[in-house]
């Protein structure tokens, strides 16, 4: 507040100085003509049409990663919701997809390969039941070989037990 006040006073002072400097001659007071401002009435001639509003279907991107419980290949509810959306879009505009199954690091590597495949297959079966053609779906398991999160703890393991739709 103070600062603004000081700045303002300075500006006023400066203008005042300039003014005095320029007016070395005595200031003659000009008596301005008393012209009255005439207000004319402005009427808007253009009548605009009412605003058009179109309701567009928002393209919400469904999740492409689906998570699983330990040693399980059962789809969670949120995965089913997302997969139904994928199924709809795959039926509307078919394209080839790849389901990559993964496991966390616990347990043996080849068993985890099988587990990753089992998870990817449960996603595949869900999509087929939703009407997606099986020829569009490729399943590849990476087991525990391609971790999404590095770390030997529950959070990382939960991130790694997944199927990625690509």
């Amino acid at each position, binding site marked *: 507040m103070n600062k603004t006040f000081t700045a303002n006073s300075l500006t006023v002072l400066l203008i005042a100085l300039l003014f005095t400097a320029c007016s070395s001659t005595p200031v003659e007071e000009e008596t301005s003509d008393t012209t009255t401002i005439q207000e004319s009435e402005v009427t808007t001639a253009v009548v605009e049409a009412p605003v058009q509003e179109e309701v567009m279907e928002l393209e919400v991107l469904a999740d492409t990663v689906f998570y699983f419980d330990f040693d399980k290949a059962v789809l969670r509810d949120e995965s089913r919701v997302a997969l139904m959306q994928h199924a709809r879009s795959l039926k509307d505009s078919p394209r080839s997809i790849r389901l990559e199954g993964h496991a966390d690091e616990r*347990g043996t590597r*080849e*068993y985890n*390969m*099988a*587990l990753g*495949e089992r998870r990817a297959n449960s996603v595949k079966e869900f999509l087929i039941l939703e009407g997606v053609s099986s020829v569009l779906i490729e399943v590849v398991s990476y087991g525990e070989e391609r971790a999404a999160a*590095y770390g030997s703890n529950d959070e990382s393991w939960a991130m790694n037990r997944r199927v990625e739709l690509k």
Partner: protein
Amino acid sequence: MDIRALVCRSIIVLLISFSGIAWSELVIRVTKGNDSPTKIAISPIVNVGNLPRFDISRLVENDLQRSGLFVATPREDMLSFPSMLKDVYFRDWRLLGTDYLVIGKMSSKGPNKIEIEFSLLSVASQKVIFRHKVSGSAAQLRDLGHLISDKVYNAITGIRGIFSTRVAYITAIREVDGMIYRLHVSDVDGAREKLMLRSHEPIMSPSWSPDAQKLAYVSFETGRPAIYTQNLATAAREQITNFAGLNGAPAWSPDGTTLALVLSKDGNPEIYLMDLQSKQLNRLTQHFSIDTEPTWMPDGKNLLFTSDRGGEPQIYKLNIATKAIERLTFEGNYNARGSLAPDGRTLAMVHRKTGAFHIAAFDLQTRRIRELTTTSLDESPSVAPNGAMLMYAMKQEERGMLAAVSLDAGVRYILPARSGDVREPAWSPFIR
């Protein structure tokens, strides 16, 4: 062996230094328990003539100490360095507490031929146990050293030595252009590491041919898993399978003609045999559950494998001719990836009773399980061809490392990696 005997056995912690390779020749510091290993002195082998400078005696010391059954008499404690029997004063060695003494000399026999003559002496009985000669080229000095270790170990323990064997393993290292997977083969002491395959895609499940000339493994280099075999000497590769779904867990039959493997081309993982000549497949299992990780019984007529047909992974036995299946393990809620000792009786496997995954030994006759390791994410056991030790993969500070443990759990050591993760050790059969 009961728990008390296990505890009473000396736990030997071997600390290892390493250099330019995944791990390298082991420099060992031994922490002894209350049970003393055999004391052996390796008198520095005398170099007669102008031969390459290489401390072959140190290599023999390291080999023998790594077995956990021996402790080497420090060189600085030795009062003399005899190379011939007439120079040996047994009393000096007895005062040092030495049980056995190795002496020898290395000499040149023509162009690029080195001969080492060595003897094993018993200090107690003051007798020569054996005299032996080995020879080879200058490039084979390490081989000659390991051969000496094998001979000495065998003469004292009655067990064939594994110092001339090799190990295959996978490394995964995060580099600038992403994760790089490598398949390596090295001497069992970590020296002479050789790169077999480098890939941006995972490599898994190395398995040795019984003649130790080839490896079978899984590689994702095409974007899908496929089984390959590769000749170690020529590096020549052959793609063996390319089926939809899993192509995994290759295991060479004892006669080398057949590969047991896992395919899920018909819907879910099943065990198959493939004739390596004709590539003909023989499906062995028919079950909607996971069947994987086949391993051969020494008779070549039975397989052990992992299946979750009982609700959780357990070890089953399968007769190849009749396809009859028998469940073997019942203790614990996770028993998988068996590796059978050459006696056909002791199965090393991944075992979980509560939360942690350990390596355990399962006796096929008594059906008893003994835990061999104490860390919590142990996997991929691979038994040495003499059945005395096994290597496995473990995690330490969130990094994958290889470790070894004796089958009586008395000896344990870690092979720390330079960088990244090391995993899936596969101990070779005896070479030649």
